[in-house]
């Protein structure tokens, strides 16, 4: 029976975003015979959950989120091949293509949402800022995404969110992806008007929306 301290070390390394300490903790855990599932669920995920909760309480901010998400990805690079070898299948939360729309260079809200989605187990493909409608869709197609998440801060860049939906419709692929929109000037009314599947008023809304979108997609299969 592994002692609690190894899980605490795994969790603490995730919270600190410390990849070196995390690598050592994973090695020690494996040496102690801790199962892969326990390493992830009782160690890493518990750390990610803690970071998310602290973020919601405004105790930590974007840097801590980004570093924790990077540490998680670092750990999963080590653990995923072992999971495959062991024949353990872990449920993937879903794939998200995210970016800030064409002509808009505001990345912060998008970065927070991307970090939160990563921390919740989504595979996130961040296209950055000033992203063309077609680029969202091409990437979504390339990685078989479940969700396209488009951020727009300005009233004059919001129409680019509509473009993504129109582009998808023109390709006859509207139902292939769930479209989530958010950002400064956007509203639920706007999301409804353009036919988006979800609107996030805050970064915190994004994860709940993404989870709902994926479960809805699975249910409709």
């Amino acid at each position, binding site marked *: 029976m592994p002692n609690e301290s190894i899980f605490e070390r795994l969790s603490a390394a995730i919270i600190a975003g410390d990849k070196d300490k995390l690598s050592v903790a994973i090695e020690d855990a494996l040496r102690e015979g801790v199962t892969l599932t326990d390493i992830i669920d009782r160690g890493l995920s518990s750390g990610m959950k803690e970071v998310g909760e602290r973020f919601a309480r405004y105790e930590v901010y*974007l840097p801590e989120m980004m570093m924790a998400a990077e540490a998680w990805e670092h750990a999963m690079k080590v653990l995923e091949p072992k999971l495959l070898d062991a024949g353990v299948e872990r449920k993937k939360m879903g794939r998200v293509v995210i970016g800030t729309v064409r002509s808009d260079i505001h990345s912060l809200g998008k970065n927070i949402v991307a970090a939160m989605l990563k921390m919740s187990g989504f595979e996130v493909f961040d296209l950055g800022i000033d992203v063309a409608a077609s680029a969202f869709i091409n990437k979504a197609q390339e990685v078989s995404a479940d969700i396209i998440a488009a951020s727009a801060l300005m009233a004059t*860049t919001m129409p680019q969110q509509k473009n993504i939906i129109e582009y998808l419709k023109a390709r006859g692929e509207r139902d292939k992806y769930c479209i989530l929109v958010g950002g*400064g000037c956007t509203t639920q009314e706007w999301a409804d008007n353009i036919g988006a599947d979800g609107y996030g008023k805050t970064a915190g809304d994004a994860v709940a929306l993404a989870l709902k979108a994926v479960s809805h997609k699975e249910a409709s299969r």
Partner: protein
Amino acid sequence: MINFSKIVERAVTGPLCSERDFDLEIFVPNLRNVLTKYDIKYDPQNPVPADDELADRVWAAAVEFLYKTGVYCLDTERLILFTRDEIEGAIETGPRGVVFGADKDAKAMPRRFPEDKKPPWCSVGAAGSPVSSEWYLLNLVRAYAENPLGDSITTPSLTKVDGQDVVAGSPIGVEGAIRTMILVREALRRAGRPGMPIVNAVATAVRSQEHIAGHHFGIRTTDALEIGTVHELKVDFDALNKVAYSLGAGSLIFAENGVILGGLSGGPAGVSVVTAAYNPVDLLIIRGAVQHPFPTHFDLKTTSTRDTIWARNLATQAITRNSTLPVNNCGYVGAGPMTKMAFYEYAAWVIGAVVCGGSIEAGGSARGTGVDYTSPMEPLFSSEVAHAVAGMSRKEANDIVTALLEKYEDKLHSPPIGKRYQECCDIVTGTPSKKFIELYREVRREMADQFGLRFPCTSPYL
């Protein structure tokens, strides 16, 4: 001060760096180091700090942070680095007493200090807030200009031109910028203040080509183009193009930076340092005649939260005690027009900003994002508060701001959206409704009775 071509040269030849490494390997650790070294900690009990020594430590931290970090150019993925001497040289040789506006509407932007009795510069208007109709824009700007305490105009953004959505970077964006300028100039003429400076020039414009187009349809060299950086300490060629054009055209520049609380700068202590660090950036890169900060809460999307108010107030003191580049503080509140909460929020951040040595730009209600959720009343009220508290001690201001925060901060997660322009103002005359004027008078009386504020008697709605 090193010249702009040197900046551009550094943007294209500086050390290569990925954006991720700039964020997480340079910016964040450097900021954490100076926060520890200079012992800068958030004090929620004192939203208006009154510690000169702390303010000077913030400035020292900001300068050290900037020369160790530099500014990141997104287009070239390179660092624009400065020496400490270059930063200090920029402060020593930066613009002073710059005059904005023309003819009888011309006025020098004051350099103010904490607790300064000099009246602050009041820029009035809903900076960039979306409005759906050219008619609303015209009447709003006219009403802004009819406020005698308004020193400059900051314009809202048109969302539609001839029924079409204004799309940034498109020909409709260019037309939107041109249309805005023509309307704003006409509004100022109707208000009888044709020389009043427009300081965010072409709010409808996002891209440099739109700025330039708008400039040719009414912007004067006595107005200012508003040019900003990208969060945090980043620039792109589009921003540098705006600077290059403005310098060539002889335009003044309002250098804007809205550090995001919760973003890369982290919490309030980091926001105060990064906001102060932007002051030399605004001189060296943006070539501003004034710094125009609006530290904003990442989640609540306002500048009226306790932590953003503290960060702004501390940064403003740090800057005004140590730099010659004046600070014109911009702000957005959560509640919408015709709500008491919006007035309280404006009063809270404006009082702090003014007693800490800054000037103000006010008018962005409903987070500055709800289409048509704007009115001329909030900028009017803000400018009156700003004049009423000039010369007040930071200690007294701290008590008032604390009391104001208690009135609204628990509602910031779901602030009342208030009324749209067309619901709270007469769309033909642009005059606020009778009920709105009554609410405004009631809040003025409340502020006078509770806090002893003596408002100027210049309001068109008394």
